[in-house]
């Protein structure tokens, strides 16, 4: 069991892992994984910029990520342009870090993650997002299923634009908070790898979500234990563990 000092980071990590796993399943179903890379990188760029300007980090990161998401929504291209936007975000963070001492520290924090230093404020924010995710779940499921039908067209009316906007806002919040708490590589590994691994053994949508949650939580718990026991940074350990779990799930499912 984590000690008292680590209780807040541990609970924040469990909660944000759950939200990211759900977001990852949605991104997998939508075929939008490149968007996650671009969003996460620009959330980090926003956080670094906020540290230079001495502005509050979360609102700035959210605003920058929302602007990038608005841009991505206008681009029908699903791979190359989101990748270019991701690279531009990487360049922006590197240039800021090279020119401002404060930015260098912030960039390192966003890259490595600050899970062990997660504050009660972050825990509340993640908890609130988790509660919102539960409330939104029926709508998210409807949108994600509806997105599968094209080029066929159902006779049922499509989801209203407000629901689609809510999904986008939720996704931006999940990626920004996840990146803030876990660091960019760990947040992306929690979103993308469990959903990918889960896609092989899952029998249906519900099963995909359960497998994604199980793999993501197992990855978090194993990485938490290993990094503390071996005195290693958490984020890279999590990336490697999640990669191993996803590959293992795929291997078992394909052979089974």
């Amino acid at each position: 069991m984590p000690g008292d000092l680590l209780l807040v980071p541990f609970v924040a990590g469990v909660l944000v892992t759950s939200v990211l796993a759900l977001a990852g399943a949605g991104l997998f179903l939508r075929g939008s994984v490149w968007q996650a890379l671009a969003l996460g990188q620009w959330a980090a760029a926003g956080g670094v910029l906020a540290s230079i300007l001495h502005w509050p980090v979360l609102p700035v990161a959210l605003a920058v990520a929302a602007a990038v998401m608005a841009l991505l929504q206008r681009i029908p291209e699903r791979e190359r342009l989101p990748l270019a936007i991701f690279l531009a975000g990487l360049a922006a963070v590197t240039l800021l870090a090279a020119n401002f001492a404060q930015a260098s520290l912030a960039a390192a924090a966003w890259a490595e993650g600050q899970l062990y230093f997660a504050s009660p404020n972050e825990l509340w924010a993640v908890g609130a997002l988790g509660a919102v995710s539960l409330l939104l779940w029926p709508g998210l499921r409807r949108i994600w299923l509806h997105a599968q039908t094209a080029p066929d067209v159902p006779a049922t009316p499509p989801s209203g634009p407000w629901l689609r906007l809510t999904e986008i806002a939720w996704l931006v919040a999940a990626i920004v908070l996840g990146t803030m708490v876990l660091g960019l590589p760990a947040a992306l590994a929690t979103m993308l790898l469990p959903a990918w691994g889960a896609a092989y053994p899952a029998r249906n949508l519900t099963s995909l979500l359960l497998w994604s949650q199980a793999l993501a939580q197992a990855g978090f718990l194993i990485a938490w234990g290993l990094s503390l026991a071996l005195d290693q940074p958490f984020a890279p350990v999590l990336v490697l563990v999640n990669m191993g779990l996803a590959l293992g799930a795929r291997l078992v499912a394909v052979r089974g």
Partner: protein
Amino acid sequence: MPSRSATPILSARSALLGFDRPVLGPLSMHVPPGARWALTGPNGAGKSLLLRAITGQARVHAGRLQVAPGVRVSLLAQDHPRRQPLPLSGYDWLRAMGARVTEPSPVSALLDRRLDHLSGGQWQLLRLAAALSSCSGHAPSQRLILLDEPANHLDAEVRDDALVLIRGLPPETTLLITSHDDAFLQAVGVENRPLAEYIDAR
């Protein structure tokens, strides 16, 4: 037979259809409720384009193409490639399409299976069943079903099942089909309507 004087469920007046630029038309047609039409014509005549324009997937550049108010339209597209892996079941697909099948159905055995584990013919049959029963709670006379080459990919095993599904539609429901498979169209029992007949004289 549908009444010729009834308000059309679908009407086009000098409609120019296309994607970036108009490639079909001007086209004028009135489809009465309850019609069962097969739109025929050579490849490239614009049959699929017309169906996609009806659902809003293609543009109406000029003229008018109008579905009667309150009518629900579903479309079975000509092809629907599946991503790999695709962790959704037949039940998920029905839910996505807002469809409900009455058991026993020719697709009952497919509902528990993953979509990417179905054969090409089974996948086509499931999509067909979903398009036919999408929004089936709506009044049958207020439903317009568009089937673009529904006989594609249907092997002998599922072809008869597809016919059973189409013939099981309520008689008030309007059906527009495109197909190059004359035997299939005859078996369905639809009226052949060459698309060229609806192109306005210039």
